[in-house]
């Protein structure tokens, strides 16, 4: 296995908690990056009296330096493990997801953050549950769990129950799915996770919506329901297909934006830099 790529990320709001880490915290303390100076009355900490400012002040107030306390956060990857994720087009979706989770755990532990994985299909899978931990030893375990996993259940209903496992303080939650479910169901999932910083990762494939064959017969099998349908592919239908896929994508983004962030499209190949840019931009 190659060394996992590092992903840079930043929570949208200041972290809370007590574990010292890399992210800007909500509380100010005695260590960290200089924040501001306040009067001694506001922060009676004689160890950090700013002598220069105190002497300069004509009103003879006493000033204390404040520092921004950097804190660690917890990251969770909530992974859709339903059958539709076993799609193989330009790439294998599960491989992309495994790569992403490995990189996330690696990056989180580099920064001293905790990382956990919650795998869901029709329920939350107890055998695919890695509670957030700062322990690096869990990284090979996660990679190994992904390597021999084959999605088999026909529903992703468990995604709505995953919120129970990420309860508590605000966390950075990567919601990794192909989002091939009705929009109301996606909205329920987002609602259940609303107190967290949700990063939707839309796992897609160009074979699904843009790199379609322009002519021929396709016997499409629904990976989840197993139902089949013969499609007589032709340029006109291909245009319609692409248009519908784009419209759905737009509707999804509209929905995701209401809950914080637009989706990052994990398409065909995992690009850690692109994900970093996406996470830092917003």
């Amino acid at each position, binding site marked *: 296995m190659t060394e996992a790529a590092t992903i840079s990320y930043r929570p949208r709001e200041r972290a809370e908690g007590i574990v010292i880490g890399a992210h800007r915290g909500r509380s100010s303390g005695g260590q960290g990056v200089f924040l501001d100076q306040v009067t001694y009355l506001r922060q009676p900490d004689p160890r950090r009296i700013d002598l220069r400012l105190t002497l300069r002040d004509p009103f003879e107030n006493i000033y204390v330096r404040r520092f921004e306390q950097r804190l660690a956060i917890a990251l969770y990857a909530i992974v859709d493990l339903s059958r539709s994720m076993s799609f193989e087009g330009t790439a294998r979706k599960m491989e992309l997801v495994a790569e992403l989770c490995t990189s996330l755990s690696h990056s989180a532990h580099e920064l001293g953050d905790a990382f956990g994985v919650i795998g869901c299909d029709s329920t939350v899978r107890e055998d695919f549950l890695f509670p957030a931990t700062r322990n690096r030893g869990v990284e090979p375990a996660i990679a190994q769990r992904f390597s021999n996993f084959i999605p088999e259940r026909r529903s992703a209903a468990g995604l709505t129950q995953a919120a129970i496992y990420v309860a508590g303080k605000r966390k950075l939650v990567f919601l990794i799915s192909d989002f091939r479910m009705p929009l109301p169901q996606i909205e329920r999932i987002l609602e259940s996770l609303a107190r967290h910083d949700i990063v939707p990762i839309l796992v897609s494939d160009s074979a699904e919506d843009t790199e379609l064959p322009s002519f*021929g017969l396709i016997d499409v099998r629904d990976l*989840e329901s197993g139902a089949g349908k013969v499609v007589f592919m032709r340029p006109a239908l291909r245009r319609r297909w692409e248009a519908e896929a784009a419209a759905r994508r737009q509707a999804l983004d509209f929905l995701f934006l209401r809950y914080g962030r637009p989706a990052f499209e994990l398409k065909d190949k995992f690009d850690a830099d692109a994900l970093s840019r996406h996470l830092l931009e917003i």
Partner: protein
Amino acid sequence: MNYMVAQPGFLWLLLLTPLPFLVSALRQAPFPSLDGVPRDTASSLVSFIIKAAAALAIFAGVFALARPYRLAENVKLLATGAHVVILMDRSLSMDFTLGDDEVQGNQESKTDTATRLLMDFVNRSPHDQFGVVAFSSAPVFVLPISGHRDAVKAAITALRRPGIEGTNVGLGMQLALAMIGHDPEATSPVVLLVSDGEYGGAGFFQLELQDALRKTFQKEHAHLYWLFLRPHKGNEDVFSPPPKGAEDSPHTKPERHMDLFFKTLGVTYRVFWADSPHAIQDAVAEIDRLETRPVTYYEEIPRQDVTPFFYGLAAFASLLLVLAKFAETGFRRPSAFVREASAT
């Protein structure tokens, strides 16, 4: 329409017919969700056509294996024309030439002339139906009234056999009328007597027979035409009364008395002289003029094997399936390169 199969055991395989509607023969392309596939009428149509073609291929193939055939049957056909019974004289005298000589070199016997003229007649009247009766001392049933040209021509050709002593026109005519009586469709019947007259005169003019013939002719409304195989310009006119003093009886002048008798039948009656170059045209024209009512007739259609039709149907359906198979495609798959790269 009645159809039967020769090998009904294969019909159990018909249970396979709905199979294409249950399983697909196309290569399956897994896709995350059918919700992402646009609804398309043309696709549904093509899908149905493929399934139907597959079902048809199985259905027709099984039927072809069972070797279906259509039962022999009578078909009612409608045509305009007459029912003509050819009443052919097969007496010994017919084997002589028109001049009553032995046939020498490439001379034509009366039989040859008659068959030639009859062939001509059959060829010129495409919608008429023909029956054939031959007679010498006794009548011979040759061919019932039929529209089959080939059968009629074969029957006429078969008349070209050496003749037999004796000329019994009366019995032959009775058989011809019986043939007409047996055909309920013979609404405009014609008896075409082909004869060179009665040499020697067998018992034609029995009174009972005359009465019976007269009754039957009137009952059947049959018309009588006589293709008379004698030179027109003979030494004496066979139909005119004999010179004074000579005996005027059926024994001395049988043709004259036949003619007289025919005239008393009360039906249309004409004599055509066979040596006249227009004899046949005249006869055809006459018959056409008189007999143009629509006639219905039944035709026997033999049992027919329809297996090739079902094989053709199965082949056609299979061709559609092959085309579908050629048009088959799928979504892009991970290439070997990607697979290898991700494995490392």
